[in-house]
C-alpha cells in the first residue's frame, strides 16, 4: 500500500471532534486550583503539572501519529516544526512558531501567540513562581520520550508573568535508540 501523505494541521483539526475551548480552559483552571489547595507549594504544583503533562504526552503521541500520518522525522529541526505546526494545531487549535535554533540544532524555542489554557487567568501575588501552563512542557517531554528522544523543556517567556508571548525552550538531550525486548539469537 502506498504511504499516505502527511496531513496538514488544519485539515486534521477540521476532521477531529471538537469541544468548546472554554470548557477546556475552565477545567484546566479547576485542576490548577485543586493542585494549589492540595499542595500549597508553588514548586510542587509546577512539578505535578509537569507529571500530569508527561502522562498525557505518552498517550497523546499515539493519537498524534495515528491521525497525522507524519513520516519519521529526519532530524530534530523537522521534529520541532511538526510539533509546532501539526501537533499544537490538531489538539489545541493554535499554531506555534519555531525560532532561536542554536548552533548544533539541538535546542529551539516554540513561541505561542495565543494559548487557550490561559483565558481569563491572572496570577495572584502569592503564586508568582507558578508556571501555569506547565502541563504543556510535560506533554511535549512525554510525547518525545515515546519516540526515543530525551528532552528538557523549560519556559522562557510567560505572558502571565508580564512577557509578551509564551516561549518554550525544547532541548534535545539525547536520542535513545529503540531497544528490542528480545535477543536476536532466540
Amino acid at each position, binding site marked *: 500500500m502506498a504511504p499516505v501523505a502527511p496531513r496538514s494541521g488544519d485539515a486534521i483539526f477540521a476532521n477531529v471532534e471538537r*469541544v468548546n*475551548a472554554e470548557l477546556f480552559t475552565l477545567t484546566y483552571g*479547576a485542576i490548577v486550583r485543586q493542585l494549589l489547595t492540595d499542595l500549597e507549594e508553588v514548586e510542587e504544583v509546577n512539578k505535578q503539572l509537569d507529571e*500530569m503533562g508527561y502522562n498525557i504526552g505518552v498517550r497523546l503521541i499515539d493519537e498524534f501519529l495515528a491521525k497525522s500520518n507524519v513520516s519519521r522525522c529526519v532530524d530534530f529541526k523537522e521534529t520541532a516544526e511538526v510539533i509546532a505546526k501539526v501537533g499544537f494545531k490538531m489538539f489545541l487549535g493554535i499554531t506555534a512558531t519555531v525560532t532561536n535554533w542554536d548552533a548544533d540544532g539541538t535546542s529551539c524555542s516554540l513561541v505561542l501567540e495565543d494559548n487557550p489554557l490561559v483565558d481569563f487567568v491572572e496570577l495572584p501575588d502569592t503564586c508568582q513562581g507558578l508556571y501555569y501552563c506547565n502541563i504543556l512542557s510535560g506533554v511535549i517531554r512525554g510525547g518525545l520520550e515515546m519516540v526515543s528522544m530525551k528532552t528538557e523543556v523549560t519556559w522562557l517567556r510567560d505572558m502571565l508573568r508580564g512577557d509578551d508571548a509564551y516561549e518554550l525552550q525544547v532541548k534535545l538531550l539525547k536520542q535513545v535508540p529503540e531497544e528490542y525486548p528480545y535477543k536476536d539469537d532466540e
Partner: protein
Amino acid sequence: MIGVGKIKQYTNVLEKPINKGKQEVSLSAFAFLFSELVQYNQTHVDNIAELERRLEDAGYAVGARVLELLCHREKLCHISWAGFESLSFPSHVWIRLFVETAIEGNRRETRLLGILSFVHSTVWKVLFGKVADSLEKGTEHEDEYMISEKELLVNRFISIPKDMGTFNCGAFVAGIVRGVLDSAGFPAVVTAHFVPVEGQQRPRTTILIKFAEEVLQREARLG
C-alpha cells in the same frame, strides 16, 4: 518578517476583551485533561464518595464561571442585535430600543423552569455543543428534576471498573450544574446517576437536581 504586529499588552486581565467564545480545542485534548483530573484525584482519596465530591467541587468552580460568562455574553449579543436592526429607525427610537433590549438581555432568571431550561439548553449548548437530551420533572418528589443525556461528553472515553460500583465521572457535570444553579440563586443538591436503558449497551446518564426548600417556597410565593 517586517511589520508583524505586536500583540497588544493588557496590564490588567480585566481590561482584556472577552472573545466571542467560538474557539475550539480537540475533544481528545479535553478527554486527556479530564482523565488526568480523575487520575490525580484517585490517588488522593480513600473512597468513592470522596472522589465524587472532589470531582463535583472541581465542576462547581467551572459552573460558577460559566454562568458569569454566559450572562455577560448574552447581554452583549442582545445589544449588538438591537443596534443592527434599528438602523432604519429615527435616532430617538433607536436609542430607546437599544436601552430596552439591553435591559432585557440582562434580566436575571428568577423562575425555576426558566433557570432549568437555561441550563438544559444554553449551558449545555455552550459547553457540549448540543442541548441536553431531556429535562423531566421527578414524579415522586416535588423538588426533583432530571436532565438526561445518552452519553455525557466527559464519560465517552471512560469505563468504570466493577469494583468501583456506582461511581460516575458525570459528578463533574453535576458539579457544573450545581455551580450554575447556586450562583443564579437556586441552591440545590445535584448528583449524577447511571440509568440502564434497554437495547443500549452503555447506560444513560441522569443528572438529578434536588432543589433546596427555600427555592420551592420562593417559587410558590411568586405563583
